[in-house]
C-alpha cells in the first residue's frame, strides 16, 4: 500500500509524467527517424550516387552549392519569393473565410465543404492539366478578364514574370487546411469571454479585435510556422505543373534538390541542400518562437 502510494507520487511528478506522455514520440523518433536523419546528414558530406558506397568529401558539397552553382541561388530566390507571397496571402484568405463561415446557417455545412474542396484535390495529377488550362492564353482566366473589359491574351505560364504567380495562386486557392484549423480555433474560444464582453458593451468589430483575434493567436502562430515549413518544402506544384519552366523561373528548391538526388545521382549534394534548408527553416522558426511572447496569447500562461 505504501509502496503503491510512493509509486503514484513518483509518477505524479511533472518531470516524470511528461516523459510518460511523450514516450511514444521518443520511441518513434529513435526507431524510425533518428537513424535516417543522421544518415542523410552524413550523406551531405559525401559523394553518393545511391548505387555505390558513399565517399567522404568533406564540405565540398556545401562549397559547390554556395560558390559554383548559380542555379542553387536561383532556385533559392524563386522559393523565397513564392514563400513570401503565398504564405501571408493564404493565411489571410483562410482567416477571412473562416470568419465568414463560422456563422451557423442552414447552408454552413455546404459552404464549408465547397471551400474546402479545392484542398482535397491537392496534388492530384488532374490539377496539373487543370491549372495549365485555366491559365492558357486562350484559357478561362483570360476570358474572364476579357468579359470584365480587360483585353488579355497573356500566356501566364509562358512568361517568366507571371508563371510563378500561377503557382502562388494555386497555393492560395488551396487554403482549406488552414481555414479548417482557424475554424476549430475560433470554436474553442470560451463562451464566457463573449458573454462578459457583451456586458461590457463590446460589439462586432470591437469584439473581433478584443477577443477573437487575441484568442486566436496560438492558432495563427501554428498556421504561420506550418505554412512557412510547407512553403519551403513545396514540391508538387513546381514538379507536376511547370517543371520549372520557363527558364527555371518556377523551379522550386525541393525540386532541384530532388533532381540532384535522383536524376543526377548526386544524393550527397541533394542532402547538403536539404540540410541547408533545414538550417534556414530552423533559424526562422526559432526567431518566430522567440517573438511569441510579444504577440501570442496563451490562456494557460496568463
Amino acid at each position, binding site marked *: 500500500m505504501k509502496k503503491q502510494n510512493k*509509486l503514484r507520487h513518483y509518477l505524479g511528478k511533472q518531470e516524470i509524467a511528461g516523459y*510518460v506522455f511523450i*514516450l511514444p514520440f521518443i520511441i518513434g523518433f529513435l526507431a524510425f527517424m533518428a537513424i535516417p536523419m543522421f544518415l542523410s546528414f552524413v550523406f551531405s558530406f559525401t559523394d553518393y550516387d545511391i*548505387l555505390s558506397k558513399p565517399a567522404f568529401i568533406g564540405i565540398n558539397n556545401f562549397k559547390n552549392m554556395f560558390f559554383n552553382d548559380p542555379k542553387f541561388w536561383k532556385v533559392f530566390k524563386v522559393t523565397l519569393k513564392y514563400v513570401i507571397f503565398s504564405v501571408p496571402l493564404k493565411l489571410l484568405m483562410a482567416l477571412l473565410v473562416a470568419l465568414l463561415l463560422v456563422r451557423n446557417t442552414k447552408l454552413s455545412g455546404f459552404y464549408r465543404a465547397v471551400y474546402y474542396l479545392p484542398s482535397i484535390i491537392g496534388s492530384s495529377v488532374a490539377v496539373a492539366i487543370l491549372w495549365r488550362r485555366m491559365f*492558357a492564353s486562350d484559357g478561362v482566366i483570360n476570358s474572364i478578364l476579357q468579359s470584365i473589359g480587360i483585353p488579355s491574351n497573356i*500566356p501566364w505560364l509562358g512568361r517568366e514574370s507571371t508563371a510563378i504567380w500561377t503557382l502562388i495562386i494555386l497555393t492560395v486557392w488551396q487554403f482549406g487546411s488552414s481555414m479548417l484549423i482557424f475554424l476549430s480555433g475560433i470554436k474553442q474560444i470560451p463562451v464566457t469571454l463573449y458573454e462578459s464582453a457583451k456586458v461590457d458593451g463590446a460589439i462586432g468589430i470591437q469584439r473581433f479585435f478584443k477577443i477573437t483575434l487575441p484568442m486566436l493567436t496560438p492558432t495563427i502562430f501554428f498556421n504561420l510556422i506550418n505554412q512557412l515549413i510547407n512553403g519551403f518544402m513545396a514540391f508538387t506544384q513546381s514538379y507536376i505543373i511547370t517543371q520549372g519552366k*520557363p527558364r*527555371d523561373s518556377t523551379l522550386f528548391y525541393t525540386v532541384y534538390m530532388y533532381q540532384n538526388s535522383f536524376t*543526377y545521382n*548526386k544524393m550527397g549534394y541533394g542532402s547538403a541542400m536539404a540540410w541547408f534548408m533545414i538550417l534556414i527553416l530552423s533559424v526562422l522558426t526559432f526567431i518566430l518562437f522567440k517573438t511569441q511572447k510579444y504577440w501570442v496569447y496563451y490562456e494557460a500562461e496568463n
Partner: protein
Amino acid sequence: MKKKIFAFVFSTIFIFGTVVGCGNNNGTNSSGKQGEDAEVTSENKETENDNNNENSEIILGFYWWGNQVRNDVTKRALDLYMEQNEGVVIKPEFSDWGGYWDKLAAMTAGGNMPDIVQQDYSFLNQYNDSGQLADLKPFMDDGTIDISKVPESIIESGKIDDKIIALSNGSNAPSFAYDKAVVEEAGVTIPLQMTMNEFYEISEIIYEKTGKLTFFDTGINALQLYTRGCGSHMFEEFAEGDYSSSTKFYSLAKRFSDSPSAIPPEILTEKDPGVIETKPIIDGTTWNDFSFSNQYISISEATGRDIGITMIPIDDDATTQPMFLKPSQFFSIAETSDHKEEAAKVLDYITNSIECNKILKAERGIPINTEVAEALKAEVDPTFAVVFDYINEVGKVATPIDDPDPNGKGEIEQLINRVGEDLRYGEVTADEAAKNVVDQSKSILESSN
C-alpha cells in the same frame, strides 16, 4: 537504479493500458493486423531463401514501368509462362516511369533488386558501373537465350565493355510526325527525309497557306542526332570540349526560332511538349512534332487526325546518315539474383515466343526477333502497321547507335533543355548557347565519371 527503470517502464505500459482505454483497444486491433503482415513478409523471405529445397517453387521478381495497356499485357504474358512452366512463380511489380527509378534505386541500395528489371538506355551505364546487372553473355552462349534470329547490332546495344548486361525488348527510332491534312492543304509533300533547308522552306509555305506553326526540337535527342549527322558523337564532343557540331546546331535552331512560322516560346511552354497528350501538334497549334516511333500511336489517338511519320530532317551538309534504331527499353537480370538461369529462360520466352509476343502486341516496340516481328505484322491494326513499316525503312539506312549514355546524362539533358529555352526566349545567341552547353556538359562529365 535498475529497479527504478523497471518500475518506470512497467508503469508506463500500465498507465497507458488503463488511462487511455480506447487507445488501447485500437492499438490491439492494429497490432493484430501488424502480426498478419509480418507473417506474410517473413513467409516470402523463407521461400526466397529456400531455393535449395527442390520441392519449393522458384520465385522470380519481375519489375517494370508502364501504363495500363502494358501492365495488362505483360501480366497476361507472364501468366502464360507460369502455366507452361510449373514450379516457376513470377511476382509482377509495376510503377509509373518516375516512381520506377526512385524505387529501383531504393531497392538496389537495400540489396533487394528484383530478379528481372526493365532498363533504359540512359540508366545502363550507371547500373553497370556499380556492378548491379548480371552478364547475359554466358546464357546466350549456351543457348538459354536464343539469339539466332536477332540482328547482331541489337545485341550490341546492350553491351558495355565485354559484358552484355541488357537485352533489348523492342526497337524504336526517332521520328518526325506531321499533320497530313495540313500538309495537303498547303500543297506540299513530305519526302522520306527532308534536308533542314527543305524543312525550313516547307515550314514557311505551310505558315503562309494555313497559319499552322512549326516546332523545332532543341532537346538532347535532336542535338545528338544532329551531331551524328556531322559524323561525330555528342558525348564525345562534350568530353573533348569540341564546339563544332553544337555551334552549327544552335545557329540552325536560331534560324528556325526567328522565323515567323516558329511557335512562340511562351506558347510552347504553355503547351508542355513533355507530355505526349499536350504536345502542340495535338490541338493543331503546330503541324509537326519530333518524337519517337513508339509515341506515334498515342499521338494519332490524341489528335484524332491522320498523322504521317517520317525520318528526322538531315542537315544539308551532313556527312553521315544520323538515323539509328534504339532499343525502346531493355530487360536486365539482377547480379544479386539467386535464379539467374531461370530468369534468363523468361527473357528467352519474351524474345522468341510468338505466342508471348502476340499477347504483348509490340507495345514495347517492334520485336527484335525478325521472325516474331514478321509473324506479328499480320496481326496488328493499321496504326501499328505504320510503325512497323517505318522501323523497316529506318533499318535500311540506320547507322550504329551511340554508346550507352554516360553518367551525368540526366543533368546534361536538363541543361540542354534550359539552353534551348534561353535561345528561344532570345536570352542567348547561338554561339553562347553552344558554348554554355559544351562547357558545362564537359564539367558535368568530368565530375560524374
